[in-house]
């Protein structure tokens, strides 16, 4: 049963090759007998080996083929034979006569002379000039034919069917081969890999069982479908367990995938997306968020400022409210920061250090009838830091606000917990922190079960009335958070160097797994 099942998976090439291996082991011979191209036999060999039906052995061998002169001598005869025949007819003869008569080149001529001399077939006689005659020994041989036979072993060699392998040569053939190797361009020697195969026990079983010469279809073709020629024939079974070559395709970057996922969480929770510029005035990025102009937080953030244009325009209707909020708390009941607020400083252009700038801008556009409002953004923010294995100058912040007269601190905890649960963190906590624009302020940590420690992922809080009232026009609790994202991505992809997230290594982009959350 097993045997038949295997037979059904055999490709036509395998079907041709396997029975031949019963008597033949050499790759070349198999190819010849199977009447297949070598690549086809090679594939059949590999497939059969994968199925453990044959064992393949490879060895290096000297392969002999004929050179330029070898081919010439094979068709036109050996030069030494022509030489000897001339001597037999015209002896004694001078070297000049001989060379003219045979038409041999000077080089060939001297080789022939050497060969025939060493075989004692000719003698040299020195008179006025050098004369050549048949040797006494050759004369004793009598018949011409038998003299010439002395050269037949070389002729036989040349008449073999090439290529041949030195390992296959008999001892006397080896001698001839060694001689020929010394001569110019008669034989060529290459080192080649010899492939042999022999059936394994399983292979022998199949050969013994016999492979039916069936008309098997390898691939369905439009023609065979049109004509119906596939009918009554069998479609070859594949070995479906075999490995296939890898491919890769187009992809959305894994950071974009993660962003899409995070956006979907907030959308599912009923939030509306915010969007806005990267370049902002200090007014929106800092002053509207009640960061005093001399506060250490303004240096702490290591802000990128724009050289030119260096100053922007401020929203007229808000400038005075913000000024007063800073200087004396305006009508919020706060004492304010108690310093002289500078409008010029608020005009400075910077790259946003927090997407909270968007929250401030959206707050300023909200009306009472829009409440409750829940807003989010996932966007780039910038900090003037050097690029390092754990610091980027440009990264992604996940921002959210809930503007609702009935919202309170416990809801802040609720939203954060829900978000992180959907991000796959079983536990999230908040602990006290400080930001100029929130009160209470909280640091957000998530529990890392692998590292068994809390990891800081962002900040949160309720916007201070000094932030809300000037922007919104009335007081209202606003829950707010700004969370980092790169750390979660690093964890998910086991990336240790944060720069690798934006490395754009094409191999990485082709092979990295999808964001599977």
């Amino acid at each position, binding site marked *: 049963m097993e045997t038949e099942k295997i037979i059904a998976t055999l490709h036509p090439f395998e079907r041709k090759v396997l029975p031949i291996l019963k008597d033949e082991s050499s790759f070349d011979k198999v190819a010849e007998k199977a009447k297949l191209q070598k690549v086809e036999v090679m594939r059949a060999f590999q497939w059969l080996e994968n199925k453990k039906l044959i064992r393949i052995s490879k060895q290096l061998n000297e392969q002999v083929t004929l050179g330029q002169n070898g081919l010439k001598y094979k068709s036109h005869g050996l030069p030494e034979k022509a030489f000897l025949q001339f001597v037999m007819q015209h002896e004694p003869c001078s070297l000049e006569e001989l060379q003219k008569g045979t038409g041999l080149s000077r080089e060939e001529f001297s080789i022939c002379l050497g060969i025939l001399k060493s075989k004692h077939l000719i003698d040299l006689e020195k008179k006025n000039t050098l004369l050549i005659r048949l040797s006494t020994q050759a004369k004793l041989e009598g018949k011409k034919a038998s003299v010439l036979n002395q050269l037949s072993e070389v002729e036989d060699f040349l008449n073999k069917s090439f290529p041949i392998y030195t390992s296959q040569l008999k001892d006397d053939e080896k001698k001839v081969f060694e001689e020929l190797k010394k001569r110019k361009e008669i034989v060529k020697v290459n080192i080649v890999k010899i492939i042999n195969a022999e059936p394994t026990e399983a292979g022998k079983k199949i050969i013994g069982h016999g492979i039916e010469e069936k008309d098997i279809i390898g691939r369905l073709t439009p023609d065979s479908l049109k004509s119906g020629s596939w009918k009554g024939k069998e479609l070859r079974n594949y070995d479906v367990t075999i490995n296939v070559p890898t491919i890769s395709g187009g992809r959305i970057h894994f950071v974009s995938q993660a962003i899409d996922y995070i956006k979907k969480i907030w959308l599912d929770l009923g939030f509306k997306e915010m969007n806005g510029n990267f370049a902002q005035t200090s007014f929106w990025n800092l002053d509207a968020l009640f960061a005093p102009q001399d506060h250490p937080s303004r240096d702490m953030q290591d802000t990128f400022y724009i050289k030119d244009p260096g100053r922007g325009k401020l929203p007229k209707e808000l400038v005075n409210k913000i000024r007063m909020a800073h200087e004396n708390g305006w009508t919020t009941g706060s004492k304010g920061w108690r310093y002289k607020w500078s409008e010029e400083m608020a005009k400075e252009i910077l790259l946003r250090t927090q997407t909270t700038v968007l929250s401030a801008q959206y707050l300023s556009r909200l009306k009472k009838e829009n409440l409750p409002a829940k807003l989010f953004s996932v966007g780039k923010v910038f900090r003037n830091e050097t690029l390092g294995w754990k610091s980027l100058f440009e990264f992604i912040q996940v921002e959210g606000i809930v503007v*609702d007269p009935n919202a309170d601190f416990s809801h802040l905890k609720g939203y954060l917990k829900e978000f992180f649960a959907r991000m796959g963190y079983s536990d999230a906590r908040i602990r006290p922190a400080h930001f100029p624009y929130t009160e209470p302020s909280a640091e957000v940590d998530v529990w890392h079960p692998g590292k068994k420690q809390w990891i800081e992922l962002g900040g949160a809080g309720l916007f201070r009335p000094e932030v809300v009232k000037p922007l919104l026009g009335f007081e209202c609790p606003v829950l707010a958070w700004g969370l980092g994202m790169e750390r979660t991505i690093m964890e998910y992809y086991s990336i240790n160097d944060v720069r690798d997230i934006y490395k754009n290594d094409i191999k990485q982009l082709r092979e990295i797994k999808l964001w599977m959350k």
Partner: protein
Amino acid sequence: MPTININRREFEKYAGKKLPTDKLKDRISYLGTDLEEANDNEIIVEIFPNRPDMLSMQGFSRAFSSFIGVKTGLRHYEVHHSKDKVIIDRSVKDVRPYTACAIVRNLHFDNEKIKEVMDMQEKLHITYGRNRRKAAIGIYPYEKIMAPITFKAENPQDIIFQPLEFSKEMNGLQVLKQHPAGKEYGHLLDGMKKFPVFRDANNKILSMPPIINSHNTGKISEKTTDVFVECSGFDFEVLKKCLNMIVASLHEMGGSIYSMEILDGNKKSITPDLSPEEMKADISFINKWLGLNLNEKEIKNLLSKMGYGFKNKKALIPAYRADIMHQVDLAEDIAIAYGYENFREKIQPVATIAEEDKFEIFKRKISLLLAGLGLLEASIYSLTNEESQSIKMNTKAELIGLANSISSDYNKLRAWVVPSLIEILGNNKHHEYPQKIYSIGRIFKKNMSSDTGIEENEVLGITLASEKTDYTEIRQILDYLLRSIGVRYEPAETAHSSFINGRVARISANSKNIAFIGEISPIVLENWQLEIPVSALELNLTELFRIINKQ
């Protein structure tokens, strides 16, 4: 942010309780300070900028002791009256107009204590004092000083004294040039004809604030028992707070606080004033803000864990607290005392309508289309440099520069995306071709009609690198993309020195330029050491989206 590094045993003495390390770590985190390290010998804690009063061993352990319930409630700081005077001369009004001063007696200094005091002074300088700009602090051995003390401004050449840790006398200008503190803080006196100075009744110079004390009258030693403390600056309220933080800590070191009379023209003030400030604690507001249901007694108890008193529905704010501006600040302290970990996690049952930004949806659709064509998305920084944007691209892009980037590789906002993509190709030469990549990102150009003077557009950049890539291939992608979203376009010949002449086109739709496409010039390829042809496209998605919305 500043950290304090304190001896654990000393700390436990001040706090009045020993806690196991685990518990200690936990409580420090929930007090609103960031724990850096806690072992058997020392504790390192980061103090947030809103709590400068915690920037000393005494201040931090005071807060901690209340928080863990050992020594709760408002602390009373007795201020003895002294008739010693500090006179603010009119001359200093244009330079550094205010000072708040105190005397603390009966201290016992050793090297350790002297260092503690100097640490506190330095950390307050940096944080609450905004690097001495807003408040500068001087602490002097009072036995070497004779009251009344005058705060005045003088010609720098006339301010001749021996600055701290220097062996010779010099004048005010020389101090700025030669003394390390003068070099560091001299800019605070920029443009001033006269420098501020404290002199005692014998006309001895005590210091030249905000720079340096005198070596003779301004250096605390182990023999010192009484100190004169002054804070100088521009806002009397700020200086009084700063003074309170210092004298409260000195009091906890065992000192007795004595007030001084500050004579400012016709006005007489007595400093320090350590009586608590009152703020109405509106119970319903606090409960609503925090989502709690606390009664008055609970509020009182919680406030007392944060060092407050409570009387007649009013919170009594400790005089060293500088961060209580509004009731929400009380609410935060109540929340900390209540324990952030003890709040419930609730989600409001209100219906709001989710809405994704339309442009973001559009961008994702484009992205999916390109991925479908077998392109890989790259994720690229918005910051780059001129070499990449212009020089290697054989062109001159109009770039907006950053004023203060610490990296020369990233000191410009990009004007186009294609150079970054080509840079990626340059970094990936060892990987298999074809390499087809795209990126969607923001580009920047000057436009004075916008509020920031900068116009931002989102663009799509594509580069195709392969032996066979050409104008046709990249144009087919553009054609497919624009057909897919139903936008008709017109190609036109154009010149662009980053591309091969005659193989680059400008694309317009609705008579707006939206893209240019073509084969990258071999000059550019050579600049990036690329040995493979590249075709590229840069398409303005912001403009394209506008066109679609008009259609």
